[in-house]
């Protein structure tokens, strides 16, 4: 501490320190001279001369004294920086290239890692997320689960990992758990229609139990959150809105507390606003509106009766009491859970009684820091892939900076030699180079940080709809990428010079062929690595381009052009199912009057939009159960979409609720289920469920069409009229003359002439909807192609540099060969031959790695094998052609040398 203070004092009063030092030394010489005069009787001039000789070099000792005072280091550092800055600006092209490459590598990696970390490992923005627990179960086909609604993923050992629980489990946990301070339940109810300030819009909503906000530790920034007193059937309906929704929908209105809104037809009072950071209990989910669980009967999307006691539909979480472990929670709650399963199972609908089931689902207690579900596997796969690509880019960046520095070191050997000869110490030179490398790395890292800052917000929306993610730049990722690139810069910027200086000055005044050769070998290896890495990216990009092309060739099975699609959910406005049909018919009738509209139809699911609906059926002819796909449609569905009828009749307006039940099936179902081409008149029924008693009669067969995604073959599907199978929310398909979206305004006006409170959800064209399902391959193709192009460009610049350097180094040799009669073509071969094998080896390694990576991506490819010969061949051809050019140009220049000039070169 004291020393630091002294050093600071010296730095601050630098001039004073210097003056005192000069005074002190002058005094010494003066005193000595006086002594010498009196002792030896020398003359004054003689005495001073003698004194100065005895003292030695004043400047040298001053310098050493400065070092003793700790001032030298700082002086040198400042000089180093000044010099480094000058050296780097003098060679602006090199410096900019290095900084840009470093920035790309660091920026891309930091951003990708930060996003991956936030999306895959991010914790909920609540108080002490580590103190939360979540529950899930592992279930088999034999598990006593009568109805399930929620998330499911493959679990260990062929089980299904499911996160929803029945109401009775929640109630027992809430009332009996002693290891948890709070137990709370919630469930997303998707989109609800919200009417506020006389306009209707969709919002995403969740039902939450009374202790949800208390348990999470999420306060209200305005008003209050929901509490147990709100979660009662007789309570005044209250709602809490998110900060984001408050801003978006109510423009941050300060008087929002106490405002009433209609949600699916029920009036709620807004009682509070949650903090900006809070957006629900899923890491990548965003909730606009939270309402009490007890309000569920008023909000049910189907407008039906309350959920059965047997249905599993609630997500469960809890907060640990201090000092309690998850194992203790498990030990306490497992018996309670098992008992609740039995209660729930015995409450099942008698129509689905299935006495064979006796399996007990296995409950697990998990960390709740990410919510019960965590990120989806699809997101996980995509992000992992992007992570790999970013890693390859970082590798290319490092290798490239390394080779740039190598070439630079070669070009500067004369400068280094001169400085060594003039007496600079090795340590001093190394420090100089270190400073330069660090300056480069710092500039690169700063630019990289800027890139990361931009990219972290640009990335997530590519992978998830409507994602709200407060991504912070991940300090670890930045440090990792920064340190890696800096170390590369140091090793290659300094390490090489270090070896050079060890040799001493003399050998360096004349570059030896051997040292040059070693450097060239190193540079070649680096370029080989870059070629391999770029080829991997180009091949994979090629596979994705092929995938997209193959998708574009797929016959969808109907006419996708000039087709507008959107969703409607008029259930809150209709009292019962007959009303729903009646309302839909009025709405569609009004839309048909809009000029430019050819026809309008309905389907329960949007077509080719990753949505499926499967049912188990039994045919009357042979009783085996078959799982087939189902679509509920309006009678004119086939005509409107342009699906040609193969046999029989289409659905008709006369197939009403009271008419005999009919179905149209597709050609695949005719073949696979009925084993004949035209099974008109055949009958089948649902294998279970309340409607299994009444059979459907097959009245027609339509051509196959894609169902939920382009990548799958057309599944066996049957179509039934929505009049006989009313569904709440449906997709409206509007066939238009000309550009579909041009009619959006007219269609919206028509809908709201019938029901002003009914919003149009997700208006888009059918083509856009199909494109949406191809988002992953499209992003992957673009991302990989850009990364591959950058990689290839960098590798070629490196290649060009190495060949030029090689040719320059061997100018004398080339002169001799030419003087002895070598032809131009011989010289060309000589110079190019040295480099061809790097391209060959790099290409070989690249192809092998590309095959391996593509194997991992098999699931993302369509219509092309991971080891696709033609893609690999064309990628290789492209690379070899461009690399060949980078080699040929400098080689040709060498071959055009004038032999006499070349000989004079040395």
């Amino acid at each position, binding site marked *: 501490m004291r020393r630091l203070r002294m050093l600071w004092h010296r730095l601050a009063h630098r001039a004073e320190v210097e003056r005192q030092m000069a005074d002190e030394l002058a*005094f010494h010489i003066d005193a000595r001279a006086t002594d010498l005069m009196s002792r030896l009787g020398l003359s004054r001039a003689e005495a001073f001369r003698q004194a100065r000789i005895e003292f*030695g070099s004043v400047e040298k000792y001053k310098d050493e004294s400065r070092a003793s005072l*700790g001032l030298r280091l700082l002086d040198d550092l400042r000089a180093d920086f000044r010099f480094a800055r000058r050296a780097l600006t003098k060679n602006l092209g090199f410096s900019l290239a290095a900084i840009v490459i470093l920035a790309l590598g660091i920026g891309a990696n930091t951003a990708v890692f930060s996003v991956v970390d936030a999306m895959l490992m991010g914790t909920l923005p609540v108080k002490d997320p580590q103190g939360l627990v979540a529950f899930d179960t592992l279930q088999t086909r034999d598990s006593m689960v009568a109805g399930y609604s929620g998330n499911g993923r493959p679990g260990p050992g062929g089980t299904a990992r499911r996160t929803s629980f029945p109401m009775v489990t929640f109630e027992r946990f809430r009332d009996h758990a002693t290891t948890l301070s709070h137990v709370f339940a919630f469930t997303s109810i998707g989109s609800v229609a919200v009417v506020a300030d006389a306009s209707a819009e969709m919002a995403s909503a969740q039902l939450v139990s009374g202790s949800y906000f208390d348990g999470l530790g999420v306060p209200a920034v305005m008003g209050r959150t929901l509490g147990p007193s709100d979660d009662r059937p007789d309570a005044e309906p209250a709602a809490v809105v998110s900060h984001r929704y408050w801003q978006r929908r109510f423009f941050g209105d300060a008087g929002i507390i106490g405002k009433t809104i209609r949600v699916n037809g029920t009036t709620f009072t807004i009682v509070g606003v949650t903090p900006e950071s809070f957006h629900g209990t899923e890491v990548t989910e965003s909730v606009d509106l939270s309402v009490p669980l007890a309000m569920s009967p008023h909000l049910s999307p189907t407008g039906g009766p309350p959920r059965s006691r047997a249905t599993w539909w609630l997500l469960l979480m809890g907060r640990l009491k201090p000092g309690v472990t998850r194992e203790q929670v498990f030990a306490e709650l497992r018996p309670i859970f098992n008992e609740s399963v039995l209660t729930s199972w015995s409450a099942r609908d008698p129509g689905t009684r299935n006495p064979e089931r006796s399996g007990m689902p296995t409950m697990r207690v998990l960390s709740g820091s990410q919510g019960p579900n965590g990120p989806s596997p699809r997101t996980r796969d995509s992000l992992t892939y992007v992570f790999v690509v970013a890693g390859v880019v970082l590798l290319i960046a490092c290798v490239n900076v390394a080779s740039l520095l190598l070439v630079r070191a070669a070009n500067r050997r004369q400068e280094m030699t001169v400085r060594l000869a003039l007496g600079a110490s090795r340590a001093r030179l190394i420090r100089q180079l270190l400073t330069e490398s660090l300056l480069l790395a710092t500039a690169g890292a700063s630019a990289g940080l800027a890139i990361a800052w931009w990219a972290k917000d640009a990335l997530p929306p590519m992978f998830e709809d409507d994602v709200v993610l407060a991504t912070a730049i991940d300090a670890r990722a930045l440090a990792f990428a920064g340190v890696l690139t800096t170390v590369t810069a140091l090793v290659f910027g300094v390490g090489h010079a270090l070896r050079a200086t060890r040799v001493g000055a003399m050998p360096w005044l004349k570059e030896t062929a051997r040292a040059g050769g070693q450097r060239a070998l190193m540079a070649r290896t680096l370029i080989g690595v870059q070629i391999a890495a770029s080829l991997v990216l180009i091949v994979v990009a090629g596979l994705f381009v092929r995938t997209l092309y193959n998708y574009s060739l797929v016959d969808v099975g109907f006419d996708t052009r000039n087709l507008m699609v959107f969703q409607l959910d008029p259930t809150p406005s209709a009292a019962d199912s007959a009303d729903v049909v009646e309302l839909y018919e009025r709405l569609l009738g009004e839309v048909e009057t809009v000029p430019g509209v050819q026809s309008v139809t309905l389907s329960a699911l949007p077509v080719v939009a990753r949505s499926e609906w499967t049912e188990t059926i039994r045919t009357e002819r042979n009783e085996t159960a078959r799982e087939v796909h189902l679509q509920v449609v309006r009678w004119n569905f086939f005509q409107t979409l342009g699906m040609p009828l193969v046999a029989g009749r289409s659905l008709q307006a006369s197939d009403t609720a009271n008419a005999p039940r009919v179905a149209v099936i597709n050609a695949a179902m005719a073949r696979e289920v009925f084993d004949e081409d035209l099974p008109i008149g055949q009958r089948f029924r649902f294998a279970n469920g309340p409607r299994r008693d009444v059979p459907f009669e097959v009245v027609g067969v339509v051509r196959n069409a894609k169902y939920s995604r382009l990548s799958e073959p057309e599944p066996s599907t049957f179509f039934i009229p929505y009049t006989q199978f009313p569904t709440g929310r449906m997709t409206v398909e509007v066939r238009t003359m000309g550009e579909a979206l041009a009619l959006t305004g007219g269609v919206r006006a028509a809908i709201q002439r019938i029901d002003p409170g009914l919003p149009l959800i997700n208006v888009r064209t059918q083509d856009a909807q199909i494109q949406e399902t191809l988002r992953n391959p499209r992003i992957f193709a673009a991302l990989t192609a850009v990364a591959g192009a950058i990689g290839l460009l960098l590798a070629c610049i490196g290649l060009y540099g190495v060949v030029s350097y090689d040719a320059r180094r061997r100018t004398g040799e080339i002169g001799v060969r030419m003087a002895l009669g070598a032809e131009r073509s011989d010289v060309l071969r000589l110079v190019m031959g040295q480099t061809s094998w790097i391209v060959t080896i790099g290409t070989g390694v690249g192809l092998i790695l590309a095959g391996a990576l593509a194997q991992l991506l098999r699931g993302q490819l369509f219509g092309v094998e991971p080891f696709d010969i033609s893609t690999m061949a064309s990628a290789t051809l492209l690379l070899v052609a461009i690399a060949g050019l980078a080699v040929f140009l400098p080689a040709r220049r060498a071959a055009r040398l004038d032999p006499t000039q070349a000989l004079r070169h040395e």
Partner: protein
Amino acid sequence: MRRAELLPGTLDLLILKAVSLRAEHGYGVLLRIEQITGGALLVEQGALYPALYRLEGQGLLETEWGTSDNNRKAKFYSLTAAGRKRLKAETERWTVSAGAVNTALKAQEA
């Protein structure tokens, strides 16, 4: 008069010893070393100053500007408490190791 080169590390010890009686300026330190060693050791005059600054930096010496015998402004060095402690420790260390070396050398002669 035979003169010996300084053993490495001994200059610091000699400087501490030289200023242990009273404060000395740089040239005074030199004279004092000549005097207490009987002129047997050769100190390069300039080399004194980096050593003085180093010891000052280590907190073993403190400095003060004063007037010399011939009435000129000079910088005087004196021991700090830490310097005095260091001198004592170094002296003991030196005595022990020098004694040991002496003994060893004599044994070989015998």
